[in-house]
């Protein structure tokens, strides 16, 4: 108690305490202020500790499987037979990578072009209209994206794109499949792409806007066209920011669960073509929460995969945030 008191009031102000001008009310106010300050500081510190706490808790629950299985066999084995105690995560890791790659290929070009358009070309009226709409797009729950995927994207892939592509490009392994349903990597990637549009657009737009106006004016005054200015000056200056936006979108795509789960087919295999069904890691975790307590080591395996997911996303996030911070610092 005394130590707390000593911390709250340093000796200098203690002497002030004997000062008759310092009323009782003054002491009360200061005490209240100090205790609020320390409470706030405690909460803030706790937030910083939350990330390691989550990682630690996952590691704790995943430990049984890490202790009994070699890490290489967990990560690179295809054998997924929880009942026989075989946990090879390769099909799920590959599923995640396939879906995320397709999503990024579909999402990055239109998002960046939209961000450049809104930041550099669009009249103010268009910006005022477009940005709130993009924000609304960001707010739609992932389950609704999933429903939309099932209603629109999956039939589109199954009935239109798949027959067309396999007729014309069927010779390529990338487009060959025995899964005619439309549920698969392409559908998952397409839904994910729409989901990460708003994120990439918002971050890229902010960082493109942060490029000093003087640079643009210098370029334009040398006779460059607007697109040349964008290409050679603005994008060069905002390069780190564009990368950061893409990486952030990628990390969102890696962890997205429900929407992907609903359209990706969920077959534990390594996809060979964009029409094959896949089974990404988050979908695996979400789909098996019911049974996981009844099979030995199953819960450890699933929470272990949550840990892997967390660490990958964490790495992507920190890298991108640091890039943004450095960029904002230089401008």
């Amino acid at each position, binding site marked *: 108690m005394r130590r707390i008191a000593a911390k709250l009031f340093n000796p200098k102000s203690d002497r002030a305490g004997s000062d008759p001008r310092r009323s009782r009310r003054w002491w009360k106010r*200061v005490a*209240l*202020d100090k205790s*609020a*300050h320390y409470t*706030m*500081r405690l909460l*803030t*510190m706790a*937030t*910083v500790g*939350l*990330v390691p706490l*989550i990682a630690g*808790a*996952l590691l*704790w629950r995943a430990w049984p499987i890490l202790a009994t299985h070699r890490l290489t066999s967990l990560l690179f084995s295809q054998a997924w037979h929880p009942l026989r105690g075989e946990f090879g995560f390769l099909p799920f890791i590959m599923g995640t990578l396939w879906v995320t790659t397709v999503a990024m290929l579909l999402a990055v070009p*239109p*998002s960046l*072009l*939209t961000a450049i*358009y809104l930041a550099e070309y669009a009249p103010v009226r268009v910006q005022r209209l477009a940005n709130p*709409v*993009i924000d*609304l*797009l960001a*707010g*739609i*729950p*992932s*389950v*609704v994206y*999933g*429903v*939309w995927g*099932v*209603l*629109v994207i999956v039939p589109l892939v199954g009935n239109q794109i798949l027959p067309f592509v396999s007729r014309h490009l069927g010779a390529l392994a990338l487009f060959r499949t025995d899964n005619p349903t439309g549920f698969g990597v392409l559908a998952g990637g397409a839904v994910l792409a*729409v989901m990460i549009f708003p994120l990439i657009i918002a971050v890229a737009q902010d960082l493109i806007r942060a490029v000093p106006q003087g640079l643009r004016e210098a370029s334009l005054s040398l006779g460059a*066209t607007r*697109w040349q200015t964008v290409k050679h000056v603005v994008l060069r200056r905002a390069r780190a920011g564009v990368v950061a936006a893409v990486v952030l979108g990628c*990390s969102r795509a890696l*962890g*997205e*669960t*429900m929407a992907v789960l*609903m359209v990706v087919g969920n077959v534990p295999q390594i996809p060979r073509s964009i029409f094959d069904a896949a089974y990404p890691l*988050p979908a695996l*975790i*979400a789909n098996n*929460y019911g049974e996981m307590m009844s099979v030995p080591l199953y819960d450890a395996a699933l*929470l272990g995969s949550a840990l892997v*997911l*967390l660490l990958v*996303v*964490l790495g*992507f*996030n920190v890298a991108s*945030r640091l890039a943004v*911070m450095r960029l904002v610092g230089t401008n």
Partner: protein
Amino acid sequence: MKQHRRRRLEERFFLVLMVFSTVTVLGSLFLILYTIIRRGMPALSVDMLTKVPKGGYYLGKEGGILNAIVGSLYLAGGGTLIALVLSLPIALYLHSHARHSRVVHVTRLALDVLWGVPSIVYGAFGFIILLALGMRASLLGGIIALALLELPIMTRGMDEAIAMIPDALKEASYALGATHLETAVKVILRQSAPALLTAVLLAFGRGIGDAASVLFTAGYTDRLPDSLLSPAASLPLAIFFQLGTPFPAVQQRAYASALVLTVIVLALSIAARYFAKRLTRNVVK
């Protein structure tokens, strides 16, 4: 001359491409809304909104999704309340004495990272907490998971709201002899109230729409939640489960439920924007 033509062609080409991309992005939102309304509207009925599932509901018998609507409001409401109690002091701290210190820097980074953590990981973490406490999936578990999910969203929103307040206002308050706490409550909170409300509403919208985090922690039940320790249904999971049944009549209800959820979330989002604009009467600029 030839080069000149090529430059103009390139300029045109990319402009067309950019406009096309923007229209695609904006169009995808309208396509989603159109699909959900078009397929959800016919299946929507008063029964859907006012009844809980009766026996055989998931086979196509009668009932509604009141359990999920109420459950979702409880879950997101509780989560938002806890997140609010935690994030307000944190946001204020980020703008108090320690404004440029290392702690503040690290906290912002931590919040951004937490924002990026997938909701399924929050679900798994909440599940571990429940296991450690010896509890089952329950309303309380879901509330905890959602509070964690909403915390970074709300705190960062408030952080940005408070950052908009001119320093001179705070300095004037300090100069009058107010303590940090008094300035925070009487000046900062008052000045940023509309923007703080926006942050709260946005976090609520994120919470009510999230499925992966409540999947492990809140469970699912056909009854209305009656205590913190009993399981609670939620709208996103109601959509997910109904869509997963093989019966077209039940799948129709999933579309209707998706419409309900979308309307709630969009209304929150629009309300948030409205408050950010309108409630600025007492705000000194």
